[in-house]
């Protein structure tokens, strides 16, 4: 959308401004919270333009990556127990657990369908006599679409919710001793829904940023200025898409359909109020309720193949993929071990794509 006359010059000026701002100062660590931001930063090699004392680390901004193995196993369990059509997003379908993924089940003859949107799953349900289950992942950006699909009220359509609210995870991140955060670059797409207001209670400098390289650099300039001046403020660089109130209609449907619970995240542990189970009112569409009996003997396990995978630390921004001994050795985009290497929004996958060594 942004049509700059001279992108190169703007990027150069912004990086010079950042150098000027950081000159002679101590180290500053900024965390961004969106896979698309990591993509912009890696694609344009923005880290190479930053002053040495300014670090931009990647946080838990990839919904596929933070979905813990337990949720995945629950979906596999349902597939094995019930004759359902299981629908999910393509990224999710490749995440392995003990070498099995949705694609593995598909290859074994199970009815797994990859969908681009929940509305595709709804269409499948309308034309089928079988129960159609949507394995729903994603943050506030994605939840309203699942909510609308539930509200459409198609009888044989069910949701297995692995949706998570993102904002509680930001507060949770600040509680880790090994995680240093001087400021957040807030996730742009989540913000279009929740609005600027959703971040006001978080007491660190924050900026909501768009996804062009100059958006990210401008947002960094705004953030670094605030950090240097000791101001705990919340700024919005992405004014073309993010309003103070956010998308109220989306917030309403989300609240109508989903409740809140304390759910686990990969890498973060249990995050208070971050889980989005279906409200009781909609239990007829809740796969957990409708297939309750099938889950009675469900017991999640640990995947021993992931023993050496350091996704958790990558998701907390404590290490970069280069610190993982498996990166581009045992673990590659073709043969991923952890979720962060599977998803296009995963930090390991993005680093593999733009790897410059």
């Amino acid at each position, binding site marked *: *959308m*942004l*049509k*700059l*006359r*001279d992108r190169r*010059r*703007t990027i150069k*000026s*912004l990086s010079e*401004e950042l150098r000027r701002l950081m000159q002679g100062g101590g180290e500053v660590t900024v965390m961004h919270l*969106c*896979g*698309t931001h990591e993509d912009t930063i890696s694609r344009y090699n923005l880290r190479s333009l930053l002053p040495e004392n300014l670090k931009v680390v990647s946080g838990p*901004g*990839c*919904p*596929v990556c933070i979905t813990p193995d337990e949720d995945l196993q629950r979906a596999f369990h349902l597939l094995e127990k019930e004759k359902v059509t299981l629908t999910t*997003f*393509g*990224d*999710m*379908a*490749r995440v392995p657990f003990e070498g099995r993924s949705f694609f593995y089940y598909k290859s074994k003859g199970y009815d797994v369908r*990859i969908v*681009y*949107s*929940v*509305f*595709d799953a709804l269409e499948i349900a309308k034309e089928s006599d079988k129960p159609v289950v949507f394995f729903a*992942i*994603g943050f506030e*950006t*994605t939840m*309203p*679409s699942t909510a*609308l699909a539930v509200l459409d009220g198609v009888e044989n359509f069910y949701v297995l919710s692995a949706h998570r609210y993102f904002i509680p995870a930001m507060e949770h991140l600040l509680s880790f001793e090994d995680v240093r955060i001087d400021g957040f670059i807030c996730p742009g*797409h989540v913000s*279009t*829904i929740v609005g600027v207001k959703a971040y006001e209670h978080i007491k660190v400098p924050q900026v909501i940023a*768009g996804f062009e390289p*100059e*958006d990210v650099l*401008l947002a960094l300039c705004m953030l670094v200025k605030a950090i240097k001046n000791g101001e705990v403020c919340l700024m919005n*660089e992405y*004014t*073309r*898409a*993010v*309003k103070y109130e956010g*998308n109220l*209609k*989306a917030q309403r*449907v989300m609240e109508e359909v989903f409740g809140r619970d304390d759910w686990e995240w990969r890498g973060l542990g249990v995050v208070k109020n971050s889980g989005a189970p279906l409200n009781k009112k909609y239990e007829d569409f809740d796969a957990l309720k409708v297939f309750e009996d099938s889950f009675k003997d469900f017991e999640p396990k640990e995947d021993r193949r992931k023993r050496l995978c350091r996704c958790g630390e990558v998701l907390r921004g404590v290490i970069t993929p280069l610190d993982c001994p498996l990166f581009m050795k045992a673990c590659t985009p073709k043969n991923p071990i952890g979720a962060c290497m599977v*998803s*296009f*929004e995963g930090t390991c996958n993005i680093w593999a794509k733009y790897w410059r060594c």
Partner: protein
Amino acid sequence: MDGVVEMCIAIPGRVVEVDYPFAIVDFKGTKRKVRVDLLDDLKEGDWVLVHVGIAIQKVDEEEAKRTVKLLEQIGLG
């Protein structure tokens, strides 16, 4: 749509035709039907951000121009 789709991204497109709850949106020449019931008063020519088959927010052209102007001033400085 086949293959693997990036689920987290949102792509801007221009509204070509509105017929609630759907609209035809043009993404750099590729036209697709998407849900638009999260946005009120959508008109032909509006820019929207589309995520997993649904428009989640309008893109404000005035604000976009303001950001471009600001960035260009920085570029000249």
